[in-house]
């Protein structure tokens, strides 16, 4: 810390920047993230180089491969930055707002632009260290040939510009949002929705992959210019909204949306003559108060709102699956079904993950847990009642998946046993996700951390086995047994295989065990995992919740 104070930054009167950098330097996670990033980057590169060079290729054969390595490294950086920058920027200003310290900053002689810029620089400092980490590796790709100095500099410049742009966009979202979680969601979703944010990303990949020999390439220059322009624009907007939303309170985003829909339906209903399909009845808790609140008062627990979620998810399946099956060419049926299934799955898994991770961590964040824990309810009663809303949501989310399998069963009667396997898989995944997320929610101090850790774990769990298989493939180690093993590990492979199996009409019940052995292993593995996760969550629950356990 004393070293930081000796930096010229202090004499430049950048108190917010110095404070943020000092805080970051004192946090263990700063070093963990930096080490993890460097480890993944360097390990992947070593595997990439070794897979290509360690297979006995001569020096002449490797000449010119630098361009493909260069493209892969730039792509890796882009994806990593896209994932990391929102995490780093989300809390920059929204965190100050949540801690109610933003008003104090605004009362100081600092101007809003100074605050925004210092916050921006404090977040860009670690981001740029991540970018710089890859420079030695990019230089190595240059030695393989196929990459010009111009391309190298251009690639580095574009990655840097995209980072600056994404960072500014993150700061803008943080300045607007009332909470860090809201800022995080807005940055991720916003950078996907607004193509101009991705302008640098769109241009960097072609530059890296196809190779532009000229540093002053017009498209690249335009892209860089646009990045800088949008960076300035985002920071200006951040400055503008900083004062206007200095004391913005945490919004409840879903209930107001549903209330607007309610009002809309009330107007429509007035025209239609007062038809009421579902009327909410006023009720008070009788014996299980937490279950009552979760299923009557929470947005995603109440039947009326769950019916809307069901409609939103079920309609695409009911419309698209028959359309693909009946209208699409046989060659693209499998692909079309896979896309529908993937979207349904990702939505279901994310919703269950986020809600299960929130049930305890939200009570902790909102400081309502301590009061609940002094009530004479057992830890198991508290958790199981809290999960009642998630269970309802899960049933609703299972409906489109069951419909999907139902359609296949209807059209493909020969492989009935196979559909049973698929149905079992469907039934086991979401409970696994529920208990995994609940476990994280029990451990983490805040709702945001619980959600981020849950979603990250689900992403690693799903993507790591296929990535590992691809790496093993580089070493020719992906034999049938290995492939089967990886299929067993990742839900992605099993889900992706469902449409393939559904469109394959040759399945016979008698050959089920031989052909679908990986699925049976998969089911057994996930059933075991479900049991272990559930036991983990329910064991020593009072201690995990944070109170004295009842002996015996």
């Amino acid at each position, binding site marked *: 810390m004393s070293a930081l104070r000796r930096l010229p930054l202090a004499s430049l009167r950048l108190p917010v920047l110095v404070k943020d950098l000092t805080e970051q330097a004192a946090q263990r996670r700063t070093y963990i993230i930096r080490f993890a990033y460097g480890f993944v980057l360097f390990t992947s590169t070593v595997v990439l180089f070794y897979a290509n060079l360690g297979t006995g290729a001569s020096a002449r054969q490797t000449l010119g491969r630098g361009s493909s390595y260069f493209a892969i490294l730039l792509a890796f950086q882009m994806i990593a930055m896209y994932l990391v920058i929102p995490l780093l920027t989300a809390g920059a200003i929204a965190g100050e707002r949540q801690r109610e310290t933003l008003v104090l900053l605004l009362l100081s002689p600092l101007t809003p632009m100074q605050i925004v810029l210092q916050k921006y620089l404090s977040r860009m400092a670690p981001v740029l260290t991540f970018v710089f980490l890859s420079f030695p590796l990019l230089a190595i790709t240059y030695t393989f040939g196929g990459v010009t100095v111009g391309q190298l500099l251009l690639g580095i410049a574009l990655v840097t510009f995209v980072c600056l742009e994404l960072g500014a966009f993150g700061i803008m979202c943080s300045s607007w949002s009332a909470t860090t979680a809201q800022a995080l969601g807005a940055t991720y979703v916003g950078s996907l929705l607004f193509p101009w944010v991705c302008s640098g990303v769109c241009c960097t990949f072609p530059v890296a992959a196809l190779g532009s020999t000229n540093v002053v390439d017009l498209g690249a220059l335009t892209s860089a210019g646009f990045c800088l322009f949008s960076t300035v624009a985002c920071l200006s907007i951040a400055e503008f909204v900083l004062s206007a939303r200095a004391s913005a309170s945490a919004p409840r985003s879903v209930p107001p949306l549903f209330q607007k829909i309610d009002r809309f339906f009330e107007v429509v209903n007035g025209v239609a003559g007062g038809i009421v399909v579902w009327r909410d009845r006023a009720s*008070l*808790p009788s014996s299980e108060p937490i279950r009552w*609140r979760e299923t009557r008062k929470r947005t995603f627990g109440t039947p009326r709102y769950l019916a809307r979620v069901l409609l939103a998810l079920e309609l695409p399946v009911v419309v698209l699956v028959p359309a693909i099956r009946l209208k699409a060419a046989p060659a693209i049926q499998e692909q079309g079904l896979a896309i529908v299934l993937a979207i349904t799955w990702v939505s279901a898994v994310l919703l269950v993950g986020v809600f299960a991770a929130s049930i305890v961590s939200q009570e902790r964040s909102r400081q309502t847990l301590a009061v609940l*824990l002094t009530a004479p309810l057992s830890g198991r009663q508290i958790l199981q009642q809290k999960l009642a809303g998630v269970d309802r949501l899960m049933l609703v989310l299972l409906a489109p998946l069951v419909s999907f399998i139902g359609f296949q069963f209807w059209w493909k009667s020969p492989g009935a046993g196979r559909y049973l396997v698929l149905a079992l898989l469907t039934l086991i995944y979401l409970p696994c996700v529920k208990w995994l997320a609940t476990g994280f929610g029990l451990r983490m101090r805040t709702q945001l951390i619980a959600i981020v850790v849950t979603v990250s774990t689900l992403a690693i769990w799903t993507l790591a086995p296929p990535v590992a298989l691809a790496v093993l493939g580089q070493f020719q180690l992906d034999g049938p047994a290995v492939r089967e093993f990886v299929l067993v590990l990742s839900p992605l492979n099993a889900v992706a295989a469902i449409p393939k199996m559904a469109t394959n009409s040759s399945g016979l019940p008698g050959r089920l065990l031989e052909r679908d052995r990986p699925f049976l292993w998969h089911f057994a593995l996930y059933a075991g995992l479900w049991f272990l996760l559930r036991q983990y969550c329910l064991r020593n629950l009072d201690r995990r919740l944070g109170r*004295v356990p009842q*002996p015996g």
Partner: protein
Amino acid sequence: MNDASASRTNGAPPMVEIFNLWVKYGSVEAVRGISFSIPRGGVFGFIGPNGAGKSSTIRVLATLQEPFAGWAKIDGIEIRSDPTRIRRKIGYLPDAVGLYEDLTVREYLHFFAAAYDLAEATRPQLIDDLLALTDLAHKIDAQVVALSRGMQQRLGLARVLLHDPDLLLLDEPASGLDPRARIEIREILKELARMGKTILISSHILHELSQLCSQIGILEAGELVFEGPLAEINRRLGLMQLVHAQVVNASEELTGRVRKIRGVESVEARGDRLSIRVRAEALTPEALLEELRTAGASVRMFQPESLELETAFLKLTEGRTA
């Protein structure tokens, strides 16, 4: 202690007993071997700077602190031996009240009535009574989130009283409240003390505690630097209490007679106003009023200032933190 509570103490253990309590967070010792007890019906005020260990001690009694060393008993039951039974005996109001934003006042109280498994038939009347006590009857159908901070605190008090606990654990109940809300909370607590509830209350507002508590514990850096009745503090530190009086028949002679009253340290006269400094351990305000009348004073106004608890606090502590 009032008569109602005194009658209940015969042969029964103290409501709270803590012996050699240690609470650690990693390498930080938040509470360092404190011991004290609170008799039934007593009002115990916990005073100490931030980080002194007040909340940690209260959390131990609320069964929310695990692990800890030493032992703590409530109504003779060691906390670790039967925490579920302890939870039925206590009402815990944390610093952050902990309200569900999506519920109304009625729903919030019914929620906790169900959590404490109270008879369903008695709940509406009980809730009405508690809302009347806390002056929230008119807000029964209001959203909890729409209540003012003071009202939320009173709702928190209504919640802790739902299951008629013997012991109330109140962690900074007056923090963040405006003067009116603080007075309202203080009056409710006085009423609860009159009803015979044992109360353990922590506060930074020493003036409030001096008007409410029968017993004071001063914590500093996890250690109990003083524990005992207020009068004991006054006696030990020789604290003075200032009393303002307006007498219709003020005169030099009367002032002289007042100076001679046992326990009066000094008298300052300005017109018909007397500022009387008395030794708190020797003369109570009630006794002084009686003595003034005996001395022939025709008293129009009599206003004792609160005891100098701030002075006691400053004398007993050194500003250390754990």
